[in-house]
């Protein structure tokens, strides 16, 4: 009877395609929106993720997330360095500045100031040049977004200059930064120079980056720093999640995406359910004939569920392929970098589609199960 179920389903081309489309549409919308949402939320912690040399972030105890900081003092830095079990600790500035191109074009930029002597926190994905050259005076590393903004369409060339707070600086490296949450270029320079590029702030120590000594766990190191200094010390991973959660809890972004996703779910269920129900109702006479002939309810339910599962699987496959194709096509687009289809999202969407299909076939199954086979004799 598998064959019969398959033929019944695909025999009505228009309805079959309608069902597939409804499922594919919801699959695409859900997986696409969830992916963008995850990518966007992931961006909030990009500048944490890009720091690869330090595992500990130390900050003012009231700091909630990456983008709003209260400066630490030199005193704090020395006290941290004095904590037992800390191998080293260096300052990090994170702030914004304004850069001006040779033609006068200007733009706000995220400015990261790295410890002068160690350059801890320097980006490691370098497209052109060398981050170590930041040791030279009046130099910066810019990301691709920044370079392409100031020198659109031009090949990546080192040694070009920009103005930061009326000081001319030389580009010594072009880097591939993880996309920040605000769509701004990311520049790196030395800590001491960041002061000159920002100008107005007196103290620039947004964070202290540190590393635990061998044999001391990160958690233990954090606890010791907190005890000794009263500052907040967390691992990079924990701070990244704190930042992500801050944005989830304090912005309208999750709600907006949530609404789209819920609509995709509801529309998918209703359209698929409606079409599937109409499909079943139109075939009611046929199901009645099958029941009269001696096909059991169990087999008929299995037939309907099989039809629903086929529609679900094909629709899901189509929809998820569309999402995958979208991210494939856009992966080289700088504005959309970092957005991709996560396996978790694929799985979650599959579960949602399964739910849609079960809900959509539920009404149909009920209708057929209660159907009196005697109706086949009625005109």
């Amino acid at each position, binding site marked *: 009877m598998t064959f*019969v179920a398959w033929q019944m389903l695909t025999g009505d081309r228009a309805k079959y395609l309608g069902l597939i489309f409804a499922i594919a549409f919801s699959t695409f919308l859900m997986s696409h929106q969830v992916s963008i949402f995850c990518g966007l939320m992931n961006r909030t912690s990009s500048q944490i993720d890009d720091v690869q040399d330090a595992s500990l972030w130390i900050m003012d105890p009231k700091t909630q997330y990456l983008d709003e900081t209260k400066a630490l003092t030199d005193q704090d830095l020395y006290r941290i360095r004095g904590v037992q079990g800390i191998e080293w600790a260096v300052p990090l500035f994170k702030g914004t500045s304004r850069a001006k191109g040779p033609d006068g074009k200007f733009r706000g930029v995220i400015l990261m100031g790295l410890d002068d002597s160690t350059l801890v926190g320097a980006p490691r994905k370098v497209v052109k040049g060398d981050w170590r050259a930041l040791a030279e005076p009046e130099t910066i590393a810019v990301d691709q977004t920044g370079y392409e903004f100031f020198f659109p369409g031009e090949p990546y060339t080192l040694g070009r200059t920009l103005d930061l707070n009326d000081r001319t600086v030389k580009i010594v490296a072009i880097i591939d930064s993880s996309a920040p949450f605000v769509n701004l270029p990311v520049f790196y320079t030395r800590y001491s120079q960041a002061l000159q590029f920002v100008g107005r702030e007196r103290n620039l120590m947004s964070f202290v980056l540190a590393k635990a000594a061998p044999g001391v766990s990160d958690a233990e190191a954090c606890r010791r720093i907190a005890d000794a200094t009263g500052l907040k010390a967390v691992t990079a991973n924990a701070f990244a999640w704190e930042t992500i959660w801050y944005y989830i809890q304090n912005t309208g972004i999750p709600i907006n995406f949530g609404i789209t996703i819920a609509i995709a779910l509801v529309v998918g269920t209703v359209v698929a359910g409606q079409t599937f129900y109409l499909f079943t109702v139109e075939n009611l006479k*046929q199901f009645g004939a*099958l029941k009269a002939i*001696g096909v059991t*309810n169990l087999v008929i339910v299995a037939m309907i569920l099989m039809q629903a599962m086929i529609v679900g699987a094909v629709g899901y496959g189509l929809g998820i392929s569309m999402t995958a194709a979208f991210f494939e096509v856009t992966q080289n687009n700088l504005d959309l970098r970092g957005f991709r289809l996560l396996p978790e999202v694929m799985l979650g969407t599959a579960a949602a589609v399964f739910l849609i299909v079960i809900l959509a076939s539920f009404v149909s199954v009920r209708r057929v199960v209660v159907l009196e086979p005697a109706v086949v004799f009625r005109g």
Partner: protein
Amino acid sequence: MNEAVICRSVVKNFGTGENEVKVLRGVDFDVHYGEMTFLVGPSGCGKTTLLSVIAGLLNATAGDLRVLGTDLAHLRNGKAVEFRRKNLGFVFQQFNLLPALTAAENAAIPLLAAGWNRRKAVDKAVTILEDLGLGHRVAAKPNQLSGGQQQRVAFARALIHEPRLVVCDEPTSALDADTGHHVMDLLRRIAVRPDRAVLVVTHDSRIFPFADRIAHMNDGLITNIEKNNEGELEHVA
């Protein structure tokens, strides 16, 4: 025993209380093996209801009913479905073929429902369709077939699993007179066998000559039974 179906004082009511409709009011009626029995009577007298009760699609409210030696009233629901699948063949007024299946696949459904593999089932369906003169249309979908051809596919579906009782409700009323005559002629020749009974509900008097026995029904009761002796109708009960 020569009776495929024995009805004694069969009663069927629909609804309860004030809405109760008494449709069968004590039917006494037999269907014999080796015969084609017609059940005739005015519209609304209860023919389809009686047919449904005999076919195990409806439960009788009261009375005794033995079909092929089995007491249907005491069959559990699941068993009744299995009983129908194995022992009954159905022909409906509106054919009720599945539009997405070919003629052969439609005819094969009772075998598919019994778990036959598709190839074997369809092969057997083709053989029967050839007997019914449809050998050249086995791959056609119902909407590519004429009414008479569709009804012949329905006959094939009703007979393929060699049921011992075939029930037909108004098999010719959707067909013109000539086609109706033709398909009844076919049905008679291919369906009637010594070990099988055929019950046909109709009010199409033009096909009465095909009956071995005609039971007249009125207002929920069998009023008169005639037997066909070489074209002469003879009153028996």
